């Protein structure tokens, strides 16, 4: 009999001036999801079921860039993607271009388990979601004020940014405070315009 282990992440690349309350918010969500995964492992759920369970929880909370809280395309739309992989048999399922499926990772699991393929995208993936009866939401569900602000600032910065929250002007002291220092650059814009993902 082996030993279980679990790891989860909420995105890489953070603004060094990240306000403490946002760090705490993120840590609390990570702790909640970690404990969810640990109790599932102690109840002998399989690794595959546990990774799906934990990522669903992370998708449902708007704090990180996935599911509800996914960042926006240049057109202000949401295009989510996800994948899941089962190590022993090296089976996998993946989806891209989703805009109404509440939990993309669960649709990826269904692609793996219930379709003859491994990867479905855009309208085909949405059609498969309807057939499988997964929970689907209005597009507005995924779009948060934070993301609208981030997109606006990314456009002003003429940049494409990864996994960062850009504080809406005046919202975070980090923006103002950081502006006085000579900014490190990331993705072509001063790091100071970012706030953590």
């Amino acid at each position, binding site marked *: 009999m*082996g*030993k*279980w*282990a*679990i*790891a*989860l*992440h*909420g*995105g*890489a*690349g*953070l603004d*060094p001036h990240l306000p403490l309350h946002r760090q705490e918010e*993120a*840590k609390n969500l990570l*702790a909640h999801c*970690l404990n969810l*995964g640990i109790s599932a492992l102690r109840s002998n759920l*399989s*690794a595959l079921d*546990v*990774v799906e369970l*934990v*990522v669903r929880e*992370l*998708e449902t909370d708007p704090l*990180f*860039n*996935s*599911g509800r809280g996914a*960042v*926006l*395309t*240049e*057109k202000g739309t*949401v*295009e*989510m*993607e*996800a*994948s*899941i*992989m*089962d*190590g*022993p048999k*090296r089976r996998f399922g*993946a989806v891209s271009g989703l805009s109404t499926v509440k939990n*993309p*990772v669960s649709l990826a699991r269904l692609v793996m388990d219930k379709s003859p393929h491994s990867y479905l*995208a855009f309208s085909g993936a949405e059609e498969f979601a309807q057939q499988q009866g997964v929970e689907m939401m209005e597009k507005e569900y995924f779009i948060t004020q934070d*993301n609208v602000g981030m997109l606006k600032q*990314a456009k002003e910065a003429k*940049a*494409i*940014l*990864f996994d960062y929250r850009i504080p809406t002007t005046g919202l975070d002291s980090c923006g103002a405070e950081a502006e006085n220092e000579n900014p490190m650059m990331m993705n072509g814009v001063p790091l100071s315009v970012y706030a*953590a*993902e």
Partner: protein
Amino acid sequence: TVGCVVVDIEGRCAAATSTGGLINKMVGRIGDSPIIGSGTYACKLCAISCTGEGESILRGTLARDVAAVMEYKGLKLQEAVDFVIKERLDDGGKAGLIAVSNLGEVAFGFNTNGMFRATATQDGFMEIAVWE
């Protein structure tokens, strides 16, 4: 981007990653998260989930490379993660990843200035962190 990697008491590994991608991305852009071997990978040996600049992770086939250097170079999990983050990301590529092995080990690595992460093992180790 969010991700989770797990090994259960039967030694089975699994990985999952989910994302909205890049802010202000072009419509139709596909990142690393759904691409097996780049943003997500699991085999008998280990499971990996990546986050960061998708195009760099895709070019570096980051997730599969962790498994490959364990398999072919005999590196241990954390050594494999450190090697891949250091050697497989092209100039300026920024990424982070989490990994578990079928021996019940956890590891992570990143060359950004932080990564939201949480790790735990059956031995009682637990860490929730943001920075280095």
